[in-house]
């Protein structure tokens, strides 16, 4: 991203510690460190990929950005203004600009509403389109995402997984947002349908300068759609760089191991068993001191278990949180 252009959205030092309550009086006994100091920004028309394994905090970051969750600490700035300082009216306005698409197309649509009502409701709530024109607008959105306008009166259960995800996209688009947080939008879909949805998202962006935060565990899909990629581990960003650099010259040992674990669909190259990560992701309730990755890191030194590395710019636009790089 260019330094001189003002970012659309900035995330600053985000922390989310979920309390874990036990016993009769629901006393807080510990905290799960879901997000532990995350900062990044995103420009208008850009796609930022957030990739990481389950429990790394990527979904929580997404939920905080669309203000579904209040962070323990930290700021989310939309064009320089902190959204957690907004009053009710301003927050409503903010929600018009930032929308979310959820992972599970089966549970994120109200089964008792027709497809048309699902897509039209945001426009009624935010009063963005005159009532008598809502029907036309819904039809237009249906066409835009590749659904037929005859399907407007159908219910979600009459749609397939891919079509439901198109419906979620139409709902998100209905308010003409500037940023869409897409939380694993294709993970529940079959390969042949996944390609359709990924291409649809790319087309929409080209037409309207939309920004995406694309959250996924699948680095293949993230690699296809993102301009920049942030790799998360145990609530922290380990590496943040343009797509090509992450994929070809990763600097963080975690990124490297992650890429090595991704099987490549080509039987001619043979099966590699190199640089496998040993062990598993530590618990976020009691994260390791120092670098969160040092327990599995192949090159860890003594320093790594004592001091937490900060995310710093090693090359232009290439940020890494590692003492040894």
């Amino acid at each position, binding site marked *: 991203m260019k330094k001189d252009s003002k970012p659309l959205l900035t995330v600053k030092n985000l922390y989310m510690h979920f309390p874990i309550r036990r016993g009769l009086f629901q006393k807080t006994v510990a905290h799960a460190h879901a997000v532990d100091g995350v900062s990044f920004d995103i420009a208008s028309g850009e796609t930022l990929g957030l990739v990481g*394994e*389950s429990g790394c905090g990527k979904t929580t970051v997404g939920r905080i950005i669309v203000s579904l969750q209040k962070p323990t600490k930290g700021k989310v700035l939309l064009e320089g203004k902190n959204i957690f300082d907004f009053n009710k009216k301003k927050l409503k306005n903010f929600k018009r600009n930032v929308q979310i698409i959820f992972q599970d197309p089966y549970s994120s649509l109200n089964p008792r509403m027709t497809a048309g009502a699902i897509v039209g409701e945001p426009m009624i709530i935010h009063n963005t389109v005159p009532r008598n024109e809502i029907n036309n607008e819904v039809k237009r959105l249906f066409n835009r995402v590749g659904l037929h306008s005859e399907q407007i009166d159908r219910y979600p259960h009459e749609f*397939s997984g*891919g*079509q439901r995800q198109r419906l979620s996209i139409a709902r998100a688009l209905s308010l003409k947002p500037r940023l869409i947080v897409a939380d694993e939008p294709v993970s529940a879909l*079959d*390969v*042949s*349908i*996944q*390609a*359709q949805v*990924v*291409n649809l998202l*790319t087309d929409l962006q*080209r037409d309207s300068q939309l920004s995406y935060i694309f959250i996924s*565990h*699948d*680095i*293949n*899909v993230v*690699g*296809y759609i993102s*301009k920049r990629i942030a790799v998360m581990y145990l609530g922290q960003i380990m590496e943040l760089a*343009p*797509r*090509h650099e992450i*994929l070809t010259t990763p600097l963080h040992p975690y990124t490297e*191991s*992650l*890429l*090595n*674990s*991704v*099987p*490549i*669909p*080509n*039987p*001619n190259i043979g*099966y590699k*068993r190199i640089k*496998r*990560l040993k062990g*598993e*992701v530590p618990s976020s309730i009691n994260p390791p001191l120092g670098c969160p990755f040092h327990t599995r890191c192949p090159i860890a030194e003594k320093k790594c278990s004592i001091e937490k590395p900060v995310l710093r710019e090693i090359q232009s636009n290439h940020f890494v949180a590692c003492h040894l790089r």
Partner: protein
Amino acid sequence: MNRHINNQPILSIKNLRVIFSGEFGEAAAINDVSFDLFPKETLAVVGESGCGKTVTALSILRLIQSPQGKIEKGLIEFEGKNILKLDTKSLYRLRGNKISMIFQEPMTSLNPVLTIGRQLTEVLVFHQNITEKEAQNKTIEMLQLVQIPDPKNCLQQYPHQLSGGMRQRIMIAMALLCDPRVLIADEPTTALDVTIQAQILDLMLEIQEKLGTAIILITHDLAVVANIADRVVVMYAGKIVEEGKVKEIYNNPRHPYTHGLLKSLPRLDNLNENNKEIRLTEMPGLVPSIYTKRIGCSFAPRCPLGTERCRIEEPLIKTVINGHRTACFEWENIN
């Protein structure tokens, strides 16, 4: 790769048809499915959700839920016997002993109220005539083989105390305890993270080398298949559309569905140098429901090569090149 040529198959499925009856009437989940499994090989059965791959796996052990589901027709031959004709007692002796299975969900396929030790030794005591003590020793050995740290302690633990990757290792250990000849793995790594998936795949390959078990790997993940399978069976809408050696299938797919599937994969080795936008190749349309009545080829409505003939006549699967079978009239026109 040619190791099976002179071999007899150890498991042979012929013209299998499984029907389910539900509120929409009767429908065939799989229809006319035939394939062989040879000793020491890994055969992958791939396809998208609803194509019948899991139903195929479940039929082999006769685990299809009745009365909704029913194996209507076919033959499953193992060691000269038709599994479908076995009495209950012989069937129990087969399951988990000669043919065992790893299920997709390591979270729900272990009994939550029994210790790991109890669940594992039970298998041995049931199938083999050995004492509790011997069973325990054998179990510890097996846990070492699947690389569980501190196996003795693990025997005392309950499933919820273990992570997903560890539970899947336990499932693998349980499946291998009786030294089965065939291991059916139904999406064994789908619920796991990539770094853990890599560990489990390594483990499965290592164990196969050591024990010589033949594996049927059921999966939707074409990347996993490319890495560990010897042969592939591709299923679509309840039928086998293509079968062959993994390199043959990936380098020269002879069915437009396989071809389209491979092209629609997002793959990092295809990304070009500069940060230019790349489009994935889409496959139009949807997988047909098993309840829709079909004539002709079930892939015809989505097929870029579909002709009038494909819409009327159903292509039967036939061998086109040595060991490579396809069910397509137009297979020569796929580039």
